[in-house]
């Protein structure tokens, strides 16, 4: 597979995953660059057993975990709820609502543990199958299902309680 194809296929997925995982756009961009570079360096190891997106997300998770363990261990644990920071008031109303909502969702996600956040993102944001998620997280599909169920419950609880 050519790097350009793999890159196009996985660019938004990797970036989105990292934005949700770090809640920091700039950091997500830097980590994405690292992921894409790793993809380029190890393209020969990609055997096509999974899709390029699944492979990229697996790398993204490893990059995120390495970064978080070294630099920001707080990203791995459930965080306290933080009130929304000010959104630029000059934005049109609808855009402002969207931005507010996106940030609200990200904040809610940060209240989940890393593995819950990951499973939720991979299923509901990346729309991967249970098997693909299991491959990325080195878990069985059954464990993924039960963890996803718990993560969704928890997310809803946080989301509703904070509104």
């Amino acid at each position, binding site marked *: 597979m050519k790097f350009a194809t793999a890159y196009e296929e996985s*660019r*938004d997925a*990797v*970036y*989105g995953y990292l*934005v*949700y995982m770090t809640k920091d*756009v700039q950091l997500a*961009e830097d980590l*994405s*660059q690292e992921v*894409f*570079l790793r993809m*380029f*360096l190890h393209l020969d190891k990609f055997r096509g057993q999974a899709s390029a997106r699944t492979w990229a997300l697996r790398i993204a998770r490893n990059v995120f975990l390495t970064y978080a363990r070294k630099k920001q261990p707080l990203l791995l644990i459930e965080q306290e709820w933080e009130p929304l920071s000010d959104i630029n008031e000059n934005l049109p109303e609808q855009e402002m609502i*969207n931005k507010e*909502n*996106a940030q609200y*969702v990200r904040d809610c996600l940060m209240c989940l543990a890393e593995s819950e956040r990951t499973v*939720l*993102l991979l*299923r*509901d*944001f990346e729309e991967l199958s249970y098997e693909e998620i299991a491959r990325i997280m080195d878990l069985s599909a059954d464990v993924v299902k039960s963890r996803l169920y718990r993560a*969704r419950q928890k*997310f*809803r609880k946080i989301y509703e309680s904070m509104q």
Partner: protein
Amino acid sequence: MEPDKILLPEITYQGNDKKLMERITKFKAGTFRIVVFTIVGLIMGLYSHNYVSDTFFPTKLITAVPYKITETIYVFLIGTDAPGRWNSYYCGWLTEFFPHSMLATLIAETVTTMLIGGAIYGSLAYFTGDKRVFTLSRFLKFFLCWCTVITLCIGAAYAVNAKAVADNEALRRTERISFFLYNEHGGSSTGDNALSRTLADSFFDDLKPVTVTRDLEKESKVGVYYGYFRYGLYSVNYEKQYLATEQGKTWSLSPEFAQVIKEFIEENKFPDGTIFTGEATEVTEVEK
């Protein structure tokens, strides 16, 4: 769609592809540099032993590095007493590292030095690359690969030499065989068609393991070239008609072989009746 799915807002990549392309370009350039430097290093390693004849100090120093590292490794592994002992018998035909085997010597002196040259210059190129791409951990992997290859090469040299030594002990014959003799005229080497031919013809006659009490004082050194790649040094007692290997195994000799050795050592005579003048003559391989 799953009923309990959580709807998360879409996110599109905002990053700059230029940055990534820049890193990839740097990686490609760095990799190319490593390959070029490694090839240069391999070539420099190949000619590293020529440092002795270089008269310009800076290039002498640069060229000498791979060879000196190789020498340090083998001297460390083999020890320093063996080279001196062997040098006195070999007239520089074989080198000190593995005097029994030309192939082992080639691996030790040339191949190992080439690999060390490649490793050194490849590593230099590694450190000139983009630090974000060519990280220390990647360098360690690169270096570990080189160490493995060099270790395997050293192992191969030892294995080839061990085989040669075992063959020497068993006096395993080859198609071509020639001899080195030493007598009071001190010619460190001598050889002659007639002499070599007669020795080769009679060497394997009656050759079988025997148990004898060795008389070390009356033993003479005889070197045997087996083909182009193997050399064995033996102690021959022409009076008792035995040959002792380096590890002390004794073999019986044919009377004819012992007679030729005796005539050469005592009377400086070749089998065709000519007299050895003490001048070293070329060794000629004789097909057996």
